[in-house]
């Protein structure tokens, strides 16, 4: 009796280990990422035979069971099975490393260049250039003179993305310096071009209205670290967004964090701070706490990119505070500062597709991507299915109000229809046109204007514009953004060291009574911490890329 109990308990444990194994053999075979593509692909030989591949995604709701995905399968025979990877950037990064360490990665990888680099170095990726030569005529056609940009330094192509073929500024682009409608109204709709003009307008309004809805008015605020200190100074200098760097005419890369432009911008913040016009807690506002302050309607101006501002503005509209929404102006240091901030790059490199060693018949994936680059494919992934997601009006593609309302009512509409699949990344860009002369995506001016409320239309009319993108300067093509090219070896550790100084000193400079000495101390510290070395590394990398680029596009 007593022995039995012990034995049973011990046996339970032993069994649980054993059954763990056997259970796995049943379920593991069908659901481990690498198995499925191989199993079904091996059965296929001819062109349109059905084949299934796995692909990772950070969008947990993505499914292939949508009208558009199915239409793609009809056309190409290819089906993708999504392998969701959730948990934010850090957790996802861990998972990609674990995949690589264990060989468990999917057939198709949908990853950033940095991660793909690790896979490439481990020999986990298939080179694609021969396959593209054979099966990708449309890929070559769309990339045109930019085709060689796809190549890694070793001459192989390991990943695919889209070329950005926009011929005009996409209609949903907007500047990130923002000023409340009511402030503009009170000042008589002035044109605000410089930080000084902005300061004066804010001061005038603040003096007259120290409180809004009974709470203290905040003339200027921000969120996070980069958006408070770095990005606005790059924008005010009229420079393209190369992250924390600036690139001069000779291709020299300079750190922005202690640049002359930064000095001027810190001065501006310092002035706001010392006159009590800077948000008292700007140094600790995060992405959770900042939106609510904006949504209260008492922040007059700030530096907020569109992706951040959309939600609090929606909240303002819902609360009926239309006059507390924001105008989006490009604001510069001086009236004669040249504005080159509206940069367009040909390479749409970001999250790219690569084909892993686990995929059988990689040509089928290439053929799939090749189809996406046809006009038919572009219409399908950009606009959807004719008669359902869009219609033709005077020969032009048009998204009806009915569909727009459906989209507004159901945030998952795009996912359910298949408009937001992982293949969407192969769109040739908002503002780009197909061979039929019409836009490749629905984000047209007409469409954007339709979404504006009355107060926004009114303000825009005062300035004689239709959309916020109209305020932006002419787009300029640049070879790439610095953060798109591979980081030079050793740069990240140096970066981190400089970042730590910057993080620590920035608030102190803004709050300084004696600005000049604080700034100089900071600059010395940065220079003593390997700034020149880091800049040298990046300059070298940039110049190498630039000459490759010039060669590739035949300059």
């Amino acid at each position, binding site marked *: 009796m007593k022995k039995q109990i012990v034995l049973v308990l011990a046996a339970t444990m032993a069994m649980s280990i054993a059954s763990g194994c056997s259970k796995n053999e049943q379920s593991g075979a069908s659901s481990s990422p690498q198995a499925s593509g191989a199993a079904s692909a091996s059965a296929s030989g001819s062109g349109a035979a059905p084949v299934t591949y796995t692909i990772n995604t950070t969008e947990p709701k993505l499914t292939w069971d949508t009208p558009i995905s199915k239409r793609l399968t009809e056309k190409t025979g290819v089906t993708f099975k999504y392998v*969701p990877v959730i948990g934010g950037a850090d957790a996802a990064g*861990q998972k990609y490393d674990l995949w690589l360490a264990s060989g468990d990665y999917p057939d198709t990888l949908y990853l950033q260049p940095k991660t793909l680099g690790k896979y490439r170095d481990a020999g986990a990726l298939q080179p694609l250039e021969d396959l593209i030569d054979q099966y990708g005529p449309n890929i070559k056609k769309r990339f045109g003179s930019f085709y060689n940009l796809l190549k890694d330094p070793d001459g192989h192509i390991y990943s695919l993305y889209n070329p950005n073929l926009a011929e005009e500024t996409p209609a949903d682009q907007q500047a990130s310096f923002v000023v409340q409608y009511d402030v503009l109204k009170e000042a008589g709709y002035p044109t605000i071009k410089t930080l000084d003009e902005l300061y004066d307008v804010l001061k005038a309004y603040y003096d007259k209205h120290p409180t809004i809805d009974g709470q203290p008015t905040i003339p200027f605020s921000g969120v996070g670290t980069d958006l408070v200190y770095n990005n606005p100074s790059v924008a005010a200098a009229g420079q393209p967004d190369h992250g924390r760097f600036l690139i001069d005419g000779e291709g020299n890369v300079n750190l922005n964090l202690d640049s002359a432009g930064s000095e001027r911008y810190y001065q501006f913040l310092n002035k706001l701070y010392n006159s009590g016009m800077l948000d008292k807690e700007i140094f600790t506002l995060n992405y959770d706490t900042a939106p609510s302050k904006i949504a209260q309607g008492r922040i007059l101006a700030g530096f907020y990119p569109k992706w951040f501002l959309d939600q609090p503005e929606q909240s303002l509209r819902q609360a009926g505070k239309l006059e507390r929404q924001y105008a989006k102006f490009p604001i510069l240091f001086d009236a004669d500062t040249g504005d080159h901030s509206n940069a367009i790059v040909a390479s749409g490199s970001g999250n790219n597709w690569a084909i892993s060693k686990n995929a059988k018949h990689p040509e089928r994936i290439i053929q799939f991507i090749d189809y996406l680059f046809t006009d038919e494919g572009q219409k399908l992934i950009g606009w959807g299915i004719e008669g359902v997601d869009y219609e033709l009006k005077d020969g032009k593609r048009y998204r009806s109000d009915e569909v727009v309302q459906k989209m507004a009512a159901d945030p998952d509409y*795009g996912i359910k229809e298949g408009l937001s699949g992982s293949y969407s990344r192969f769109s040739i860009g908002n503002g780009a046109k197909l061979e039929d002369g019409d836009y490749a995506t629905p984000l047209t001016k007409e469409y954007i204007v339709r979404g504006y409320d009355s107060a926004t239309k009114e303000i825009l009319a005062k300035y004689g514009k239709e959309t916020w993108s109209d305020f932006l300067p002419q787009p300029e093509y640049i070879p790439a953004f610095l953060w798109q090219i591979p980081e030079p070896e050793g740069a990240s550790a140096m970066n981190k060291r400089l970042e730590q100084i910057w993080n620590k000193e920035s608030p102190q400079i803004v709050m300084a009574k004696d600005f000049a000495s604080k700034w100089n101390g900071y600059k010395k510290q940065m220079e003593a911490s390997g700034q020149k070395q880091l800049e040298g590394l990046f300059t070298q990398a940039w110049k190498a890329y630039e000459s490759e680029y010039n060669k590739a596009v035949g300059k």
Partner: protein
Amino acid sequence: MYKTRSAGDMLFVTLNYGLLLLLGLFTLYPFMNLLAISLNDSIDTVRGGIHIWPRIWTATNYEIVFSNPQLLSATLLSLLRTVVGTLLSVTVTTMLAYTLSRRDYMLRRAINYVLVISMYVSGGLIPFYLLVKQLHLMNSFWVYILPGLIGAFNVLIIRSYFEQLPEGFSEAARIDGASDVQILFRVLVPVSMPVIATVTLFVSVGHWNSWFDNYLYNTSPSLSLLQYELMKILLQSVSQLTGGASATGHVDTQTLASTSPESIRATMTVIVTIPILFVYPFLQKYFIKGMTIGAMKE
């Protein structure tokens, strides 16, 4: 028991109740705040200022969470994991703790060291992942149960409780010829219910709340746990907010999220926490003073 109450006693009782009441209010706030946010319109929530009462009532946040078709099966699997995992773990833990409380057990010292040191070492994620793969535990239910089956901390807590019991107990049983198994389950376990209930709570809450092993090892939807599904919904709302749906920025301005991460997070926490709040009072009955040793002495 306490027949007379002095003035000092009265003062103490009043202060004690007052203090505990205050502490209760203070610790209740975060949950009330989440409850209010989960029932408040998510776009309105962005404005802030929601404390313990919703401003614009809505059930949308719950509807969004419950619209996930996998939620039911995930909940059932989470329950299964919690029940199976807790039963196995508490049984094994208790047995191990008992052997270690036996001062004459030859392997006691060695096992103690193995146990204690295991709490302070970790080989990191990559070796662990490869181990799980090697054991063929990927895509299996048992990866939820086996790796965490023995928590050294819990073993030590139970061991310490066993050691505190008067030695006479098990000695009497032993002299009557009882085996170790009988001593443990017939004599020691009944008088150790408070600590076993505590460990049961720790283990079950751990199982109920975990999702990372699901995320790392089990990609099959049939092995999805509740917490994992909720994490997915939360992440979805985050990416909707930042327009991460596609890399090309092909996001329609007009299709703004009907909910926000803040609201979803609040709703998730409420959904996951309420079952735990129901289980705890159930376990509390084992904490009643005096039901244990006093009774045994008779």
